[in-house]
């Protein structure tokens, strides 16, 4: 499942805290080595970024009968980074009907990831 290309050391700016350490990750004998991390969380962040990078995704879907034409939505958990644009295409094709409550599921198990897309607010 690893599709990382770590023959060259990779620079990663850590966002585990606001400090923004510049980490360097490389692979040696199949193991990922992280240097310049200011703390343990930095090392974990770098490994996560290499093996399974994910991001929270927030966007909008169209809504009918609501105060505004758009409903803000977000993923219930960080979403695989390489599938974000597929998810966005899916959201652009989605249309829902008001009223909606914050936390209502707009798309269940999006793209088979097990992650839901939920409404960010109430809209009537």
């Amino acid at each position: 499942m690893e599709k990382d290309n770590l023959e060259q050391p990779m620079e990663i700016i850590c966002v585990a805290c606001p400090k923004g350490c510049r980490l360097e990750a490389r692979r040696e004998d199949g193991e990922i080595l992280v240097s310049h991390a200011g703390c343990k969380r930095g090392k974990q962040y770098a490994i996560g970024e290499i093996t399974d990078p994910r991001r929270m995704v927030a966007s909008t879907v169209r809504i009918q009968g609501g105060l505004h034409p758009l409903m803000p939505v977000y993923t219930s958990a960080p979403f695989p980074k390489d599938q974000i644009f597929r998810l966005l295409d899916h959201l652009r094709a989605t249309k829902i009907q008001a009223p909606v409550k914050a936390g209502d599921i707009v798309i269940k198990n999006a793209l088979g990831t097990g992650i839901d897309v939920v409404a960010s607010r109430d809209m009537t």
Partner: protein
Amino acid sequence: MSINHFDAVIIGSGPGGLAAAIAAKENGAGSVLIIERDVELGGILLQCIHNGFGVEIFKEDLPGPTYAQRFINQVAGLGIEAMLDTMVLDLTADRRMTVTSKTHGYQEIKAGAVILAMGCRERTRAQVRLPGTRPAGVYTAGTAQRWVNVEGYMPGKQFVILGSGDIGMIMARRLTFEGAKVERVLEIMPYLSGLTRNYVQCLQDFSIPLKLQHTVKRIIGGDRVEAVETVAVDDRWQHIPGSEEIIPCDTLLLSVGLIPENELSRQAGVRLHPLTGGPIVNADFHTNVPGIFAAGNVVHVYDLVDWVTQAGYTAGKAAALYARGKQDLPARHISTTAGENVRYVVPHHFDPIHIRQEELSFQMRVSRPIEKPVWVEALAGTERITRHALPYSRPGEMITLTLKPEHLQKISIIDTITIRIVER
């Protein structure tokens, strides 16, 4: 015409206003009214659809509208009144307001206490003096954010963003999500003005180039922006000849800072601080005008919404006590002075009674980045009251210093404390 009376009136329903209304009600204000010029409560949070809100208060990573919704629900549950789509035209020092709206008409309102929670406005093209033609397609980042996230308009297809503030970077990602091309983000300073995590997740993730020490030399276009000419600058912001580049684009977004919105405060005689642009306040966020309080970005621009909420709670509680006649007038003022490397400190002054029983936090911004370990120190004259260590200090990240009851003795006879940041 009848005058409506409320114990506490809050102007603005962003995070500061919502928290102030809740705290005012919970601390005994019988009638609480929020006046909001938009058609719904929530303020700018409603267009900030990205995550990152609530990490301090809820220990959750929420989108802006979700964060707002929690407070809106609380406001409704507490029986706080709201006048929506309503503009406050005038505020006097004796806390009378004239307001107008389509649904409520023209009204006069009198308040036992007023909490100013109008937030900020964005700096515009005129305020950063960008040369060139004056075509359509030059917008503030927040305006574009409202169109893209709430109203459903894309303001362009090919963008350049001036300013590396958080809203600018977040819009770079958002526009990319919606199929636009963001050619680059320009920043006149030699460092990022927003948070590092936004650089990583909004620019680096989508290979959007960030050019530090670059600005717009000229806007090009007739009816519509056709390109911008960018230029590198030196440490004194002087253009470096020969570094010009023409970047074709149809839209230029400006993310060049926020200015607290204080027209109403001025009308009421509230004294403003020259550096923050917001009211001068004490530890209760009480302004110089008795009974007029201020909370949130109207005082100074915060990094995190959670801190705006905290400020709202403090102001709302104090306003309720004032309206009930239960707040003693300050016995003594100690002013806070911004020392070495500190641009400003909030609160600007305080009554030492505040640290008799509980802690009091001061918030400040540094004037320049120091990428080395520093001390944040509070001094009474030349004597150090307290200090704490930080690994670095940056203008984009607010710094807090806390005074505790044990420090009371050291400040008992002085009338000013100085807060400074020095290298360790």
